[in-house]
């Protein structure tokens, strides 16, 4: 665990992030307030029972909350306040449980979808896609239909697609849950390796304690009603208990 000096302005930080549901009777708190910081190349794990709001937290960070939910507090990425930006302008990548590869595009099409518009020219874009595939040991898969890939292959393509969009943070919404045990460990390593290699602050939401172990970073617990036990009001330290590898709270 490390405490990062936020004055450096790198990484993903949440300051007093609170999500409430707009109701006629008055707002109802769904989650929070949560404050944490994810340094670059680090993985912070968030755990909690189903329905406690983990996925909502991720939605708040990447900006895809439904309008019925209101957010207070701030989300900072590399020192910039991205709380009010639309999702397409936040440069926050997200991976879900399901690979969600677009079925009407080929593998290459899916991967190219994420490429920033600044990368111009078909050949340049093509090269990037091929390079990514080669690096993931999937050269030659470019023209394949995603439906013809195995589960593990699709998961890898999903990650590649996210990485190709040059995010500055990575959110993982239980991405390993649908993979079988053997595949899980391999893919987990694959994801963390890539994230670390690009210096991405990563926030992982999961059920599986083994994920947290493998992540090797701090672990945040959320209660069933969306509150964080022992939440602190300062923004510099991750709230909740410390988590040493092998120990859980």
């Amino acid at each position: 665990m490390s405490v990062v000096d936020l004055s450096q302005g790198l990484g993903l930080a949440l300051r007093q992030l609170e999500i409430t549901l707009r109701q006629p009777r008055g707002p109802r708190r769904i989650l929070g307030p949560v404050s944490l910081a994810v340094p670059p190349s680090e993985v912070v794990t968030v755990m909690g029972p189903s329905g406690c709001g983990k996925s909502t937290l991720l939605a708040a960070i990447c900006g895809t909350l439904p309008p019925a939910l209101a957010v207070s507090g701030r989300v900072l990425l590399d020192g910039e306040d991205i709380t009010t930006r639309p999702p397409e302008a936040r440069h926050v990548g997200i991976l879900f449980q399901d690979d969600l590869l677009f079925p009407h595009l080929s593998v290459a099409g899916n991967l190219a979808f994420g490429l920033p518009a600044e990368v111009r020219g078909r050949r340049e874009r093509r090269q990037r896609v091929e390079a990514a595939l080669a690096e993931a040991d999937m050269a030659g898969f470019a023209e394949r239909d995603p439906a013809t890939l195995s589960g593990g292959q699709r998961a890898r393509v999903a990650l590649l697609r996210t990485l190709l969009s040059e995010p500055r943070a990575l959110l993982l919404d239980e991405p390993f849950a649908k993979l079988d045990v053997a595949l899980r460990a391999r893919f987990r390593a694959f994801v963390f390796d890539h994230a670390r290699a690009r210096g991405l602050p990563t926030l992982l939401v999961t059920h599986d304690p083994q994920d947290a172990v493998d992540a090797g970073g701090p672990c945040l617990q959320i209660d069933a009603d969306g509150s964080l036990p022992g939440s602190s009001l300062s923004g510099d330290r991750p709230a909740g208990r410390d988590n040493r590898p092998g120990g859980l709270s």
Partner: protein
Amino acid sequence: MSGGPRLAGGDFLRFVPALTLVLFLAPVAAGLVGTWLPAFGYLPVLGGERFTLAPWIHLLAQPGLGESLRLTLLSGLLSTLVTFALVVLLLAACHGGRLLMALHSAMAPLIAVPHAAVALGLAFLIAPSGWLVRLVSPWATGWNLPPDVATVQDPNALALILGLVVKELPFLLLATLAALGQVRADERLAVARSLGYGPVTAWVKAVLPAVYPQIRLPVYAVLAYALSVVDMALILGPLTPPTLAVQVLRWFNDPDLSLRFTAAAGASLQLLVVAGGIALWRLGEIVAGRLGRGWIAGGARGGNARFLRAAAAGPVLLLVTLAVLGLVALALWSVTRRWRYPDALPSAFALETWARQAPEAGAVAGTTLAVGLIAAGIALVLALACLENEQRRGLTLGSRALWLLYTPLLVPQVAFLFGAQVLAIQTRIDATWLAVVWSHLLFVVPYVFLTLGDPYRALDARYARAALCLGARPARVFWQVKLPMLLQPVLLAAAVGFAVSVTQYLPTLFAGGGRFATLTTEAVGLATGGDRRVVAVYAFLQALLPLVAFVGALTLPHLLLRPRHPALDRAPA
């Protein structure tokens, strides 16, 4: 603060639902008012300056009004009841079975065929000198001359009821099947059967009460249509006197201009009839609910009811067969040179009718095609815009909005088209493409919306979220992610909209001022023209166009989307 500043495109989208509502509800409302006013004597252009009850008095003094009302109520209520009963029986007896799947696929094309074509085919089929009699005469029946029995245009509107049931059964069946998915019918059925109930009883006791609220609006739409239908009534229904809607149309077309007031009063009466019919049905619902609750609580298990399967499928198969045979008969007539009474098949075939009618029919088909495509296209754009706006703003379609959507389908056409026509004349858009397309839009938009709504909302929202987080703007997400994934439902909705436009009869007549000829107006107009061959050509074309649209909607995605890799079809686990 949630989300962020919306882009300009999103702001524009916000107005689309309001625009859509205005577009297709305002003419209905204006038309209703424009028909009520003359009903009470106020129509300045024809000299009606003061409010008076004279039109109503004149209306009630018309001979045959009572009989017209009797025919309308009888045909409307009975046909809806029979349709509903058949649907329930069929689903209860054949739930999930292969027979149901087969019937489902057989019925789907029937929905595409316009009402007029079905009616024309049936009219020839069941007439005393019609095909069914020709097939068995005179060798089986000894009828050298046709028997003098009224099977078409009979005084009790039985032929009309038959035609209505044939056309409405597929619609209601498909609507109910869609609703079954939402109420988890399979699970309910499993639970009930595990408690010892026979299959049919289990369905009626456990599934029907849950699914009925979902199909209430489609049932009302069927009832409203049956009570106010004009084109089928002109072909199959009695004519002396006719049903109320036909009679009102005759008054509207009468050279004596003073009858317009009576016609407006009659149109308002038609509205009351439909409202009353729906209210009566609602009363029936309540009574059935009371009695049903007692019956359900009684615990009668019901038997295996194997024979009910046949009893249910039999009539439905018969109806589908009749419809198909009728269409085949039309096709035969279009290539006939001579077909006299008791011959089972034409004695001389020729393509000369097609050749002679080709220029005229081609032009009319062109008009039909153009109006249909434009109306379906606009409706599609509006529906997509509304749905996308709905998703971006996180709204959901309330039941009140659903009723609004159904309004043009519940209000009888005859009750507001006259007022809309007067309005169109005064704004000088009458007898223009704008008026005709707009009048079709009134009915196309609800159907397109209903067809597209569920698939659109059912699309996994995470695809859009993933795409947004990959850096794509919402517009790009819509065009490059959502739309391609929804290609099949979108095309299907377009085909539905097109079919609805092709089948419109009264709107084309009123808004087009008699200047626009579509395949439907021509087919109905020629129905009594004494040359079945010409009618058959128009009816066949009229049936063909929507069928082609549906086939196109179902096959085009396979051609447009990327073909699958030939070597692998299924991924290894």
